[in-house]
């Protein structure tokens, strides 16, 4: 799969890309939402794995923007904050389907989530 990883902490974005590449995925790291949208337009990835709380445009708005461009793209939100769930519910009410994973997540869990087909109204995989 072609995956863009978005996180403002380089150590997280880079290690995630490393893990994904090791499993054969085509992964790229960006550190902010604006860059993610630009790259998504160009690369047309299959999935986005993005942090929620970031400086500038946050993960959810980034995700919404990318969804508009690529309706078939899977969006996995990655967050260390419980408040994210409310925002996700809100987005769901607006018609967006995002998956949510809580930091810190065991990489195996993330990998298996990516392989499993995405179901409409997917539940969040709690760690």
């Amino acid at each position: 799969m072609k995956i863009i990883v978005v996180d403002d902490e380089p150590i997280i974005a880079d290690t995630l890309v490393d893990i994904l590449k090791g499993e054969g995925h085509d992964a790229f790291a960006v550190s902010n939402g604006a860059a993610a949208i630009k790259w998504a337009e160009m690369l047309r990835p299959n999935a986005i794995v993005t942090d929620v709380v970031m400086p500038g445009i946050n993960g959810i708005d980034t995700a919404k923007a990318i969804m508009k461009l690529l309706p078939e793209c899977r969006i996995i939100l990655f967050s260390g904050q419980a408040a994210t769930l409310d925002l996700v519910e809100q987005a769901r009410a607006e018609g967006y389907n995002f998956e949510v994973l809580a930091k810190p997540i065991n990489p195996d869990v993330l990998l298996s989530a990516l392989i499993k087909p995405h179901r409409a109204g997917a539940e969040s995989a709690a760690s």
Partner: protein
Amino acid sequence: MGANPIMKVPKPSKRVKKDSSGFHEVPFYRDHAGLTDFLENAVLAMHSVAPDGTILWANKAELSLLGYMPEEYVGHHISEFHADKDAIDDILGSLIAHEEMQGYKARLRCKDGTIRYVRIHSNVLWNDEDFIYSRCFIIDVTDHERRAKRIAAQHTITRLLAESTSLDDVTGPLLESICNASECDFGTVWLLDDLQQQLRCVKSWTRPGTAFPQFENATASLSFGKGQGLPGRVWASNEPAWIEKIGLDYHLPRGPIALKEGIHSVFAFPIKTVKGPVGVVEFFARELKKTDDEFINLMVALGSQIGQFMERQQAAEAQRRLAAIVESSDDAIASKDLNGIVTSWNRSAERMFGYKAEEIVGRPILLVIPPELHRDEDMILGKIRRGEKIDHFETVRVTKSGDRIDVSLTISPVKDELGRVIGAAKIVRNITENKKMERALRITERLATAGRLAATVAHEINNPLEAVTNLVYLAKRDLPDVNKASQRLELASRELDRVAHIARQTLGFYRDSSSPVHLNIGQALDDLLSLYEKRLEVRNINVVKQYEPSLEITALAGEVRQAFSNLISNSIDAMPSGGSLAIRARRSHEWRNSDVPGVRVTILDTGSGIEPRHRKNLFQPFFTTKADVGTGLGLWITRGIVEKHGGKIHVKSRTQAANHGTVFSIFFPDRVAASRGKSSHQSASRLIDEPISA
């Protein structure tokens, strides 16, 4: 006996001529003309009456006293001139029965219609059983009689007004008393109907045996405005009025009716009070009454007396109402004199303290003050003596059963009519429940803060942990390559350091902080800024720090950190899309009391500012302008912490487009101010002397 005016007198016997023992012959006695002159021209009134009552003779004095010409008097029946018809029957009856009259009181009618009081001294010339004629002397006692009657009336009225508590009870006897004293037949009291500005008749009295049906009716049904009718005129002028003879030219509404029913004279006087006349008293007489200045003066005095009576009644009524309000109030209300002795104690005070009014009135208020606070009472009395009021003074009191209660007192000086302070009135509110609630609220906020902090910490820790998780996974995967694995583990180690640092910091907030410790202000502020680093970055907030070196205070570290944390957090919330946060800390002194050294920390943000209308509620519990975040308790808690340490907190804010932002300024003394053991009490003394400005 005929109409012969010349009396037949017996010849006087000859008197013995003077001898050496000294008897002189008095010339007139022998001389008929002399005797005639003597009797005719003496100043004492004399007359003689036939047994059938015909006046045989009357001297000049008598004619003059009564105002008659000889032909109008002599030869007429004596009963024509007595005001009381049965008097003459009485007199003649006694004389015929061979009795002598000594000082018989009677009333005689003068030609002009007025009455004179007289005493009649009389005896009879008898010829065997024949009543020849009477010898009558008349002493005019009118003045004496009138005066006596008036004095009696005055005494009666004074007594009536002193003993009575309602005007209603008193008006009837009052009218009767005055009517009797002045020989009037009808009296009325008019009172001002304040709402409509009209005089209405509230009471009238008619002499028994007389009746003026139409006049009474008219009086009862009419009302007079200012200047209308006699009552209205007296009201307007506030002076008495006396009409000797009611004539139609007086333009009195009831004039014609009065004349028809035989009323001739009227006088009226106003009931005077400090605020002006409140009523009029009127008296009517069938017989003509001549203007009598002495009587007028009496009535004017009486008018004032009645007025004062009414004022007293109103004051008593007002006082009763006030006492009823105080007694039934839900607030405990008590009063004391300047020596601290309880002078009043209402029902709610009884309930609050357990002492009944009888048990505590007359005893010192110190009974309900805990011993260690007795000095407070001196301070309170001192302020009261200076005429100062004490508002919402929070302190502790003790009930009869020994329980302590938290109370809030409002104490006001009580002054006499000269403005001198004579005591104090206090309203006592039991705030024990309030205080419990406040304590609960503080705990809630602390828990909420802990929760928020925990959320922040969790977030701060989650990222490094995420990194470590990934690095360990990669290290395992890369293991055959020792170098690469080693690099991963090195990075993981550093991330774990970060975690440790954050954990240490935040746990530091919750160390047991029940006793003051040395706290480095700069360090505490830096710790907080470090904790909020991410939030500051995300919002693009520029931080400027300016700390003087080695700023230390002795305080409850956790609470002081919480106070700063609240303010910094608020500043961050105020700048969602960027701004500047400036924190300054320096040595300083308390604003008003330069003896107290300490540290001043100012926290400035360039957020939208606090609107003036919110300013006064800023430190109230549950006040918040944040739509969905927070409990609204942050600033209230912060102020509580500052006050607990004996410090001060001020805020300034601007909301203009070109100039907006908020500055909080906190002063902490180097050392927590000496506490008396109860934090509520400490904040209480702050409340009296130096109100927090916000």
